[in-house]
C-alpha cells in the first residue's frame, strides 16, 4: 500500500487536523513535503487558513472607503430603550 504522504485525500485530512491539534513532527514534515510537490494541496492549505483568519476577524471588511453608515438616531434610541426595559 502506498504511504499516506502520496495521497491528497489523506494529506488534506491531516492538514485539517493539524489546525485542531498538534501533529507529531514527522507527520508535519511529510505533510509539508507533499505540499511542496502538490499545488492543489498547497492551495487547500492556504484556503483553510484564510477561512480561519476571516472567521476570527473582527474587522469591518469589504466596505467602500467612504462608507460611514451608522445607526440612525431612531434605531439608537430604540435600542437604548430596549436595554433599559
Amino acid at each position, binding site marked *: 500500500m*502506498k504511504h499516506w504522504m*502520496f*495521497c*491528497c*485525500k*489523506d494529506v*488534506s*485530512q491531516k492538514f*485539517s*487536523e493539524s*489546525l*485542531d*491539534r498538534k501533529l507529531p513532527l514527522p507527520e508535519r514534515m511529510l505533510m509539508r513535503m507533499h505540499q511542496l510537490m502538490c499545488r*492543489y*494541496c498547497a*492551495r*487547500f492549505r*492556504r*484556503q*483553510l487558513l*484564510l*477561512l*480561519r*483568519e*476571516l*472567521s*476570527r*476577524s*473582527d474587522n*469591518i*471588511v*469589504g*466596505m*467602500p472607503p467612504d*462608507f460611514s*453608515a*451608522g*445607526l*440612525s438616531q431612531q*434605531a*439608537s434610541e*430604540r*435600542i*437604548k430603550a*430596549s*436595554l*433599559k426595559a
Partner: protein
Amino acid sequence: MDDGSLLNPDVWVDQHGDILFRFALQRVRDEAVAEDLVQETFLAAMRAKDRFKGQSSERTWLIGILKHKIIDHYRRKKFHRSDMNVEDFAETTDQFFSENGKWQIQPANWDVNPVEAYEQKEFMDAFYQCLSQMPQRLADAFVHREVDGLNTEEICKAMDITASNCWVMLYRARMLLRRCIETNWTQK
C-alpha cells in the same frame, strides 16, 4: 477589574453601536435587519454580562455575539437542512477525490487578499451563505472552532462527541465550506 464601569449598557450603544451596525450591514445587506441584529446583540450581551471575562476587549466580545446572531439570521432564512449523522457525510468529502486519492475536484486558485477589502465583500457573502446552508452539526462544529476559537475538548463537551469525531466533522465542514464558497463566489 471594575466591571460596573466597564460594562455599562447605557454607553454601549453610543460607543459600539455604529461599528456593530456596519459589521452587520456588511453581512446582511439590509438596514432594518442589521438594526435588529445589533439590538439582539446588545440584549444578549446584557444577559450574559456576568460571563464577560474581560480577557478580550468589550468590542471584540460584542462582535463575537453579533457573529452568532448573523449566522442565526441566515439559518432562519434558509431552507431546511438535514440532520444526518457525521458518518453520512463521508461521501460528501469522498467525491472530491478519485479512487487513488488524488484531487478530482481540484481547489481553484483564489485571488483573494485578506487585507484587500473590496473583493472580500462578495467573498464574505458567499462565506455566510454557505455556512448557513451547511448541515447543522457540521456548521456548529465549524463555528465553535473557527468563529469562537474553542479547542477540541470544549467542542467535544458542547456537542457531546469524541475527539476523533470532532476532527472528522471539522474536516468535512471545511471541505464543504471551501467548495461551496468556490462555487458561489469565484466562478460567478
